[in-house]
C-alpha cells in the first residue's frame, strides 16, 4: 500500500480528482474552501484567514479544519451520500451533498443543497456574506421629522401657522353664518357625537 499521504498529494495537485478510493476501509473526500477576497471585510473574518473555518461531515460526525491553502480532507469515509457543512463567522455557506460511490471510485458527485447547483469539483464558496449588525443610518432630516416627536412638532406648526391662514381666507359672510349656526345649535355635547349616545 503506497503511503496515503503521497496519494493525497497527488490528489491535491490535480484538483479535479475529488474523491479518491483510499486504502483500507473507506474513501477520501478532498475539497477546498475558497473565500473570495473583498467579501465580508467587516472584520469578522479577515480575508484569507482560515484558521477558524470548520468543515463538518454529516452534522458533526467528523470535524476538520482547513490547511493554509484552503484544502480540507476527510478520510475513511464509507460509500454513500454525505453532507458537508462549512461554518465560518461572517459567511453563509450552503451545505453540500457529496455522493461517494463504490462503483466508480473517483467520480465527483457534489451539489449545493440550497440551490441544487451541481459542482464539477469540490470547491466551496460562500453564497453570501453575513452582516450580523444593523447599520446605523446616517443622520437625515427626514428621520427626525418622521419620529413621533418630529410629527408632534410638525402638527403644532401646522396648527399655529396654517390654521389662522385658513380662517383668514374664509369669506367673512360665510364665517358669520357659520358662527350664527353654531350659536343656534348650542355647544355640541360629547354624547351626541357618539353613535349610540343619541338614543339614550
Amino acid at each position, binding site marked *: 500500500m503506497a503511503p*496515503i499521504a503521497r496519494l493525497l498529494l497527488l490528489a491535491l495537485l490535480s484538483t479535479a480528482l475529488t474523491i479518491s478510493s483510499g486504502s483500507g476501509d473507506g474513501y477520501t473526500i478532498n475539497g477546498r474552501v475558497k473565500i473570495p477576497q473583498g467579501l465580508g471585510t467587516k472584520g469578522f473574518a479577515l480575508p484569507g484567514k482560515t484558521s477558524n473555518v470548520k468543515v463538518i461531515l454529516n452534522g458533526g460526525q467528523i470535524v476538520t479544519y482547513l*490547511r493554509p491553502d484552503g484544502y480540507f480532507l476527510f478520510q475513511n469515509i*464509507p460509500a454513500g451520500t454525505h453532507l458537508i457543512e462549512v461554518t465560518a463567522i461572517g459567511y453563509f455557506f450552503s*451545505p453540500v451533498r457529496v455522493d461517494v460511490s463504490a462503483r466508480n471510485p473517483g467520480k465527483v458527485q457534489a451539489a449545493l443543497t440550497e440551490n441544487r447547483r451541481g459542482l464539477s469539483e469540490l470547491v466551496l464558496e460562500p453564497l453570501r456574506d453575513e452582516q450580523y*449588525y444593523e447599520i446605523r443610518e446616517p443622520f437625515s432630516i427626514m428621520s427626525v421629522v418622521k419620529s413621533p416627536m418630529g410629527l408632534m412638532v410638525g402638527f403644532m406648526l401646522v396648527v399655529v401657522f396654517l390654521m389662522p391662514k385658513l380662517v383668514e381666507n374664509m369669506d367673512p359672510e360665510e364665517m358669520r353664518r357659520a358662527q350664527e349656526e353654531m350659536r343656534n345649535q348650542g355647544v355640541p355635547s360629547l354624547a351626541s357625537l357618539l353613535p349610540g349616545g343619541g338614543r339614550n
Partner: protein
Amino acid sequence: MAIRSFFLFILFFSSSLSPVFSLYEDQVGLMDWHQQYIGKVKQAVFSSQRAGRKRVVVSTEENVIASLDLRHGEIFWRHLLGADDVIDGIDIGLGKYVITLSSGGSILRSWNLPDGQMVWESSLQGPKHSKSFLLVPTNLKFDKDNVLVVFSNGRLHAISCIDGEVLWKKDFEAESFEVQQVIQPPGSDLIYVVGFAASYQFEMYQINAKNGELLKHESASFSSGFSGEVSLVSTETVVALDSTGSILLTISFQDGKISSQQTPISNLVEDSLGPAVIIPSSVSGIFAIKTDAVTVFIRVIGEGKLEVVEKTTHEIAVSDALSISEDQQAFALIQHASSEIHLTVKLAHDWDGNLLKESVKMDWQRGLVHKVFINNYIRTDRSYGFRVLIVMEDHSLLLLQQGEIVWSREDGLASIIDVTTSELPVERNGVSVAKVEHNLFEWLKGHMLKLKGTLMLASPEDMAAIQSMRLKSSEKSKMTRDHNGFRKLLIVLTRAGKLFALHTGDGRIVWSHLLRSLHKSEACQSPIGLNLYQWQVPHHHAMDENPSVLVVSRCGPSSDTPGVLSFVDTYTGKELSSLSLDHAVVQVIPLPYTDSTEQRLHLLINADKHAHLYPKTSEALSIFKREFLNIYWYSVEDQNGIIKGHALKCKCTGEVADEFCFDTRDLWSVVFPSESEKIVATVTRKLNEVVHTQAKVVADQDVMYKYISRNLLFVATVAPKGSGEIGSVTPEESWLVAYLIDTVTGRILHRVTHHGSQGPVHAVFSENWVVYHYFNLRAHRYEMSVIEIYDQSRADNKDVWKLVLGKHNLTSPISLFSRPEVITKSQSYFFTHSLKAIAVTSTAKGITSKQLLLGTIGDQVLALDKRFLDPRRTVNPTQAEKEEGIIPLTDSLPIIPQSYVTHALRVEGLRGIITVPAKLESTTLVFAHGVDLFFTQLAPSRTYDSLTEDFSYALLLITIVALVAAIFVTWRLSERKELQEKWR
C-alpha cells in the same frame, strides 16, 4: 429605565417582517456577555520559544486544544475538535508546530503555534486497537527533516514534522501484544517498544529509528503476570506490578537483554498495605506507588535495587520530569495540607535537596490538585526559577509562581450539566436606594452625547465615551432584585460537582461551591451530579427565607447506585444539608405543590419503581395525601422502545415501615415494534410555562381553541437502520414517525410518518405546538416540521346565541378520560443547518409572541419567529390572513443574519439553550452554554412595554422646551396682533 405604560400599542406595529432581534455594532456587550473556556486540562506543553510572548499549549477533556498566554491565562487561539475526536497526546515540534494525536491515535495534526492555523493533517491506520503514544524526539533527523514517532493502532510510524508524510511504518501484529511504552533514548537512533503479551510475557522490540527495521526482539515470561501500568525509570528500565499488586518487577532491557528483579512491596514498606497501583511518571530513577492510604516514592539504585525515599499520607500530585540541563531532571511535587498546598521542586537524582519549597494558600472550594505541569525560566541572577500549572478537582487551572497564584481560570464552567435560576435578594429600605444621577448637568451631558450618537454626529472620542458610559451603568450588575427582573442568579452545576452562581448582569461568579456530597468517599466511589431543581422559591409566606436549590446526584455511572441529595442556599452558596439516600434515583418529579415554607414537594422514583416523597415532613405528607389520586407520570425506556404511564398505589409494603415511600402501578404502556421503530427523542412542555389564552382568533373573526394540556408528550422514532449517521442508509429503508401521546391515559392523539427521513431529531414543545428538526434523505436537506393541536370540543362555542342562552360548554370540566376531540395541523419546511440545540422563548405572562432559538452547527444561536412555522401558511394568503400576520409560504425557512442572537460570536461546543422569563412581559433572558457561555436579553416582539436603553431623553426635553417656547412666542405674537387690530 422601565417606563411601563401604554406603549402596548407598539406591539401592533411590530408585526412587520423585519428581523425583530437586531443589534447595532456599538451595542455589543450592553445586554449580553460571552465567556470563553477550555475545559479540564489533560496535558500541557510549555513553548520554549525564547522570544515573544510565553505560551502554554493545552489539550482538555472537552477536546479543545488551546494556546494560552502564560502571563495572564488568556486564550491566544483555541480549536474544538469533533465530539469523537478525543485528544490522546500533544507536543510541540520544531518549536513552532503544535502536534496533536487524536481519535484513538488515528488522526495526527499539526498546527501553527503563533496563530493556530492547521498546517497538515494525516490519518494513521493500523491493524488493531492499541494505546497510542506521540513522541517528538529533538535530535532524530531524517534528511534534514525532524521526525515524529507515533505508535497507534498497533503500528509504529515515523512521520515528517514538516508535511506529515509517513516515512516508514512497522506493524506489531502479534495478536495478544499490548504496548505499554515507546521509548526513544535521546542521542541514539533506536526506538524501544515494550509491552505485554498474553498478560504474562514481557516483550521488547528494538527498532532502528532511521528506517523502521526490527533490530532485536526479546521476550521473557513472568509467571505472576502483570497489572496496571508500567513506569519508566530510565531509558532502559521499567517497573511493573504483578497481578496481585504486591510484588514490584524491575525489568531492564539494556543492550537488548532482558533481566529482571522481583521485590515484594512488603520488603520496602513494613506494614502491609494491600494492593498498590503505580502512578505513572516520567521522572528517571524514581517512581511512586499508591495504595488506599499512603503514597510511597521509591528510588531505583543501580542493578534493580529499590529504596523508599518518602512515604506520605497526604494527597499528592507529581509532575513529569523537566530536564534543566544535560544530566539534570527536575520535577514538581504538590502535597495537600489543611488549607494550603506545599509545592516542592526536586532534582531527580537528589531526593532530599529541594530546589524550591513554597506554600500557597488554596481555597478549599477548589478541591484537590489533580495534575501538575512544571516549567522553568531563568531569573535575572541566572538561577533557575520554576512555575507550575496546576489543574484542580473543580477543573480550574492555576499558575503558581513565587508562592503566589498568578492567574486562575474557572474552566469547570466549560462542562455544565444543568442550569436553573434564582432571584436576587429584595432591596431593603434605606440600604441602597438607587442613586439619582449625580447632578442634572452630568445627566444632561450624558444624554446629549447619546443624542449625538443617535444622530450620527458624534466623533470617535464621543463614541468611546458613550460606549464606556453604557457598559459602566452599574445598574445591571447590582446584587439586588430589579423591577424588570433582568437581574438574576444563574445556578449552574458542572461535571466536576461544583455549583456556580453567575450574575446575569455581567456574568461574574457570585459564589462557587464544591459540593461535599459529590466528593469521593468510602460510600460513594464516583459521584456524578445529575440535575438541579428549585427546592424553595419563597415569595408569599416565607419572604425571610433564602431560596434554595436541590442537587440530585448518584454514586456511580449505573442508574441503580444510591442517590445523594444536597440542598444549597442560593444567596450564600452554603450547603444547607445533604442526604445520602439508601435508594437509587431514576427519576425526579417536581410536584406542583408547596408546603407552608414554600418548599416544593418532589417525588423520587427508584429502580424498583417505588416513589419516595421529599421533604420528609408530616405537612408535606398531608398535602401529598390530598392529591394522591391526581399524580401521574410516565417513564421512557428507550432501549426497549417502551413508554409507560404510572400512578401511585399505596404505602410501601416492605419490611421497614416508611410513610414517605409509596408503591406504584403501571397504568398503560406504548410498545414500539423494535424491528421498525427506535425512540430517538421525547419532549414535553416546560413545567413552568405560562399560556396567556386558549383562544386564537384567526382571520374573519373565527376562533380556534388551542389544546393545552401539560400531559402531552412528543415522541419521535426512526427506523433502527436509520439511527446511525447521515449517509449510512438509503431513503427507502428509513422513516421517522412522530407521535403526540397523552401521558395520563396513554392515548395517541396524533401520529405522522415522514418517509425517507432520519434523525437526529431535535424538538421543542410549547403551548399547543411542537417543532422538530430532522434530516430528509430524499431532498438531502434538513427539515423542520410543526404540529399544532386544537381542541374541537369547544369549537361550537363560537355561536353568540349559545353563549347568551347558556348552552355553551365552557364551564364543563376538562377530563383527560373523555376522548378529546382534537384536530392537528402541520407543515414542513427546509432548513439549511444542522442543529445542536433548540429552545423557545418564554415570557412572564405568555402574551408576547414566541421565537424559536436554534443552536446551529456553527455554534451560533439563531432566533426564528414562530410565525415562520405556522401550519396555516399558504402560498397566497388572503387579505384577511395577511392582516392577521400570516407569511406567504416558502419551501425553506429564512436565515436572517441580523437575527443571530449571538451576533458575530460563537458559543463554541454549544450544548444547551435555556430561556427564563424576565418580569417585564416583553423580555426573556437567554443563556446558551457549551464550552463557552453566552447570555443575552431578547424581546421577541420588541420592547413594547419599556423604553429602550437608546431612548433619547435629551431629544424629548428639547422638544418640550421648544414647544413651550413656541407657545410663549406665538402667544406674544397673537397678543400684539390683537392689539394692533384693536388700534386699527
